[in-house]
Each structure stands twice: as structure tokens, then as C-alpha cells.
């Protein structure tokens, strides 16, 4: 795994983006953030709501949409109890930098249609041109 330097003064051009929350209706891999080609991406904030009747364990990393498992998990798993939400603010979010153009994938251990879905939303910083 490549490790990038993030000096205290990081002057690389960047923008913050938040794509619409996604609904995880099943336990397959989905795209949390579609990273622009040529840019790297860092997760800055994460919000997960579990509408399912069972606890949801959410995984974040890289993977193929529709696959049964992520290719690579990049963050520790997040457990969200039924009917509750977890919010990871910026100062608690590690600055892992996904490779150029690499989408951020997500998967939940439970899913369901409508109100039973697990909802995930991220604020992402894209770095590059």
C-alpha cells in the first residue's frame, strides 16, 4: 500500500465534494464516491444511518460494484445499531488517500429496500487538477 506524505502545509490544489447519500439495499459493494479521473481522494467526513432491523457493519475501501466483498478494505469497520446513526467528523477521520481515479467503495453487512436501507454519505476531498 502506497503511503503518501501529508506535511503540515499541504498546498496541493483540492476541492471538497459530497455526492448524494447512497442507499445500500443489499450486501453488495456499491460506490460511495465516484472519484474524478486524475485526482486522488481523501475521505473527510462520514455519515451512516442504519434503517435495518439488524446491526449494520459498514466497510469502506476499494472494490468492484456488485461484488460480494471489497477488494481492499481501507478503513476499520463501522458498526451501527438498528435505527441509529454514526457520524465520523473530520478531526476523527484518518487521511487515507485513495489512488488516482480510484472510486471509494462501500459495503454493508445488511441491507433492505426503502426504510430498511443503510444510508451512507461522505464528504470527500479530491486532490489534483
Amino acid at each position, binding site marked *: 500500500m502506497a503511503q503518501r506524505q501529508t506535511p503540515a502545509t499541504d498546498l496541493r*490544489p*483540492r*476541492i471538497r*465534494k459530497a*455526492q448524494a447519500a447512497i442507499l445500500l439495499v443489499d450486501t453488495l459493494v456499491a460506490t460511495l464516491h*465516484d*472519484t*474524478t*479521473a*486524475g485526482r486522488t481522494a481523501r475521505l473527510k467526513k462520514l455519515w451512516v444511518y442504519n434503517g435495518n432491523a439488524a446491526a449494520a457493519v459498514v466497510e469502506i475501501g476499494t472494490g468492484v460494484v456488485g461484488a460480494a466483498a471489497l477488494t481492499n478494505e481501507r478503513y476499520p469497520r463501522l458498526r451501527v445499531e438498528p435505527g441509529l446513526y454514526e457520524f465520523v467528523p473530520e478531526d476523527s477521520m484518518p487521511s487515507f488517500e485513495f489512488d488516482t481515479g480510484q*472510486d471509494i467503495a462501500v459495503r454493508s453487512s445488511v441491507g433492505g429496500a426503502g426504510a430498511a436501507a443503510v444510508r451512507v454519505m461522505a464528504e470527500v476531498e479530491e486532490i*489534483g*487538477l
Partner: protein
Amino acid sequence: MELTTITAHRPGPISPILKPGENVAFLMQGSWNFYQVLMHEPLQMGNAILQDIGAIAAGAASAITQSTGVRADTNRLLQVRFAVLDDIRVAVFQAQASAKFANLAGHTQISLMSAQMDPDAALTETFAFEDTHRPWFQVTNPTGVNVAQSRIIAWGIQYILDPLPKSALYDDAGNIRKDLRATKVIASAMAA
């Protein structure tokens, strides 16, 4: 005629490069045009010169579209800078088939990142004379999601000019008048 200071693309916020009473010369379609500056006024960064090219699908590019905001009346010269409000890349042309900000490596584009490296957008500075030299834009959506709008803003200075007749340019001997040395040259190309 001596060439005096070339003042386009100065770092810092945009400011007039021509003063009332000064002469200005610019090269259009291969010939020099001489004018005297009567006055100048600012163009606000407002809705009137904001242009929304429209929705663009992920990874797609728009047609090369003429600017609807950077328009000058007769005998007026615009000195404008550009910025974008959405996550797009804008290639500027002037004329429609003539790329600005391009070299052998390709056509460099204005994006949201441009403002971070060039906060006053000095490198985007463009000149347009009358309505026939409007810039053109081709907008690319580099992201993986569709964008619903692709906005380009402009702001700058408008100069009201008075054409210098040939009799004002040449003396009786047919030589360029020496006081034209006080002429500022616009280095930015404006093709028809």
C-alpha cells in the same frame, strides 16, 4: 514606434492597464489598430456576464460555445478574467477555432483548481474588442457524475475608445508620429 510596457496578466487583482488619454494599439487579423482611451469602467462579477453552458454528462464535453457575457459594444475593449463555479474544465478559444492558453503539449484549461494556484486569475486575462471577438468556451466534465450546470463567470474592465484616424498616426512625411510612443500594446491575440 517604440513598444512600451506590456501590461496584461499582471499578478494581483485586475486593474486597468490603460488610462484615459492614452493611446492603445492592438493587433487584429494581422494589422495594427490604434485608438485613444476616453474612459474606462468596471464590469462587475454579476449575473449579466455569468454563463451557464448547461448540463454535461460524466466525462463528456460541450460544443464550442460562444460567450454570451463577454460582449463589447462598438469601439469598446474588454479586459476580463475568468473563473468557474462548478467542477468543470474550460478550454478558451478566440476565435472559435483558435485555442488560447495552448502549447504543443495541449490546450490548458481553467478549472476550480486554477483559483488555488492563481488566486487573482491573472493567467486567464483575455481581451475582446467589440462584439466580433468574443471568446468561445468548450466545457468538459472530468468527473464520474453528471453535472447539472457548468457556470463560467467573468469580470474586468471596459474601455471606451476613440479610433485614431490615419492623419493622427502619420506626419506629413509619412512617418509614424513620435507621440505614438506613448501607446500601450495589447499583447493578447484577438482573431476574428
